[in-house]
């Protein structure tokens, strides 16, 4: 059952007002009662029933009947009427009552429908909010799953990389061993031959053999130094190491027309590390820079003590920047993967940076590479001064 929320005085006031309005309008018409008068009061009853409900509708009916009787049915200004007038008034009253009832019922049905509609809308709104929440949490779960998948993928890649490195270390060791001894014999006999009386041509040919064998040994040693565990650690002056390395590579700079600029800090604290593998690190990085520089360019090497703003602990920062071809952005994230190279076929092995990373790991250091295609590459390495010694370890089989 619907309860009308509007105050009773307002609802009954509407009955009074609408009947009064009908009375006023009717008074403007010719005095004799005709259907127009009845219609006006009928409208007043309908309006009252619609806005006020059944009670006010009844009141309006009674007031309308009395008004019609008193003002418009002969004899005027008297409630006394003849039987014809009484019949007309009775018919009006009955129809007004029925109309009042039906209008009220219609109004109630409409109100109920509106309320049901509002409730439905409210429920839809609530469910929408719930769905949005569920959706949000689902999105969160998907993102979480994606993160976990990425992490798993990264770990698998790292594992594969370590396995490949280990395999490479074993293969290199075996090759070095199997070739090292016979090469030693060849070189040894060559040197023995040199002590004999040989013609000028013979001596020259022997010298070629010796050079080539030494070259083969050099290649083996290079592979070994790239994969072998660091044998010695000691106090290393990084500036000395840089200068020594630059001197070593001077012929290559001259050959490639590379201008070398250095900006080394005046006094650097020594670091604890293996100078051979650290030099290997510098050689690999400088080698990459030189390969990237085409038709003359500059190579800048700087060293300094690390600041707090660098985000590292106490240590040394070495930066090697070239004005070379740069690394394509899509290749940058994979640059430390084994066998990934930017160099032309036959030139790069995709091995150098992997070794650099392993050497830095062994020294507790880090490496960062920034590159702009066509403008150059800057490699920044950090080597800690205090805890390098504690972390000095490389997996045995690399």
């Amino acid at each position, binding site marked *: 059952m619907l309860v009308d929320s509007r105050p009773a005085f307002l609802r009954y006031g509407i009955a009074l007002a609408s009947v009064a309005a009908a009375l006023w309008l009717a008074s403007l018409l010719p005095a004799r009662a005709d259907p127009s008068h009845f219609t006006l009061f009928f409208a007043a009853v309908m309006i009252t029933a619609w806005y006020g409900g059944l009670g006010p509708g009844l009141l309006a009916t009674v007031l309308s009947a009395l008004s019609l009787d008193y003002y418009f049915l002969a004899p005027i200004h008297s409630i006394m009427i003849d039987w014809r007038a009484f019949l007309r008034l009775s018919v009006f009253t009955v129809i007004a009552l029925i109309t009042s009832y039906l209008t009220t019922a219609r109004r109630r049905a409409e109100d109920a429908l509106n309320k049901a509609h509002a409730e439905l809308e409210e429920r839809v709104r609530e469910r929408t909010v719930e769905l949005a929440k569920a959706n949000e949490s689902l999105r969160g779960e998907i993102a979480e799953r994606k993160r976990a998948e990425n992490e798993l993928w990264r770990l698998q890649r790292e594992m594969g990389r370590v396995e490949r490195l280990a395999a490479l270390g074993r293969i290199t*060791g075996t090759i070095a061993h199997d070739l*090292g*001894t*016979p090469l030693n014999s060849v070189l040894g006999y060559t040197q023995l031959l040199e002590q004999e009386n040989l013609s000028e041509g013979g001596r020259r040919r022997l010298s070629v053999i010796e050079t080539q064998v030494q070259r083969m040994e050099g290649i083996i040693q290079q592979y070994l130094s790239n994969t072998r565990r660091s*044998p010695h650690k000691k106090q290393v002056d990084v500036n000395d190491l840089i200068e020594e390395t630059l001197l070593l590579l001077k012929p290559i700079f001259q050959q490639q027309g590379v201008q070398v600029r250095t900006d080394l800090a005046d006094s650097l604290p020594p670091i604890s590390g293996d100078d051979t593998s650290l030099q290997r690190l510098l050689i690999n990085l400088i080698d990459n820079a030189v390969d990237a520089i085409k038709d003359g360019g500059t190579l800048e090497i700087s060293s300094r003590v690390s600041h707090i703003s660098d985000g590292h602990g106490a240590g040394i920062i070495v930066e090697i920047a070239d004005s070379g071809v740069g690394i394509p952005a899509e290749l940058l994230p994979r640059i430390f993967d084994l066998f990934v190279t930017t160099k032309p076929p036959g030139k790069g092995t995709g091995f150098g940076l992997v070794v650099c990373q392993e050497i830095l790991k062994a020294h507790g250091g880090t490496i960062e590479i920034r590159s702009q295609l066509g403008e150059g590459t800057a490699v920044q390495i950090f080597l800690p001064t205090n805890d390098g010694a504690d972390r000095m370890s490389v997996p045995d089989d690399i």
Partner: protein
Amino acid sequence: MRVLVVDDDETFCQYLAEVLQGKGIHVEWTTDGLEGYESSLYELYDLFILDQRMPLILGTELVMELRKDNPKAKIILTSAFADEALQNLSRVLCVPLLSKPFSANRLVQLVEAALGP
């Protein structure tokens, strides 16, 4: 002076023998590690030159066997893959380690140092 060379590479044995014989040192050699050990039981050698990686026995294992019979045996270890582990092991065993490839001069130097004046 008698030296026994044990290395699974025959040519290399011959080369070492030739170098040392040039210096007036008597050299015997074998490519079989176990045969080398047997020879040490019957013959007296002033110096052993052993390769580390051999099929039946490692050079360092042979060092320990030789030392059991003769704690003062003079030995030089050679290896084409002298990694940190082997370097440490040779230090513990007090055996000089010659990393291949080495020159004839380096070998002669080390042998003469081991045999003494």
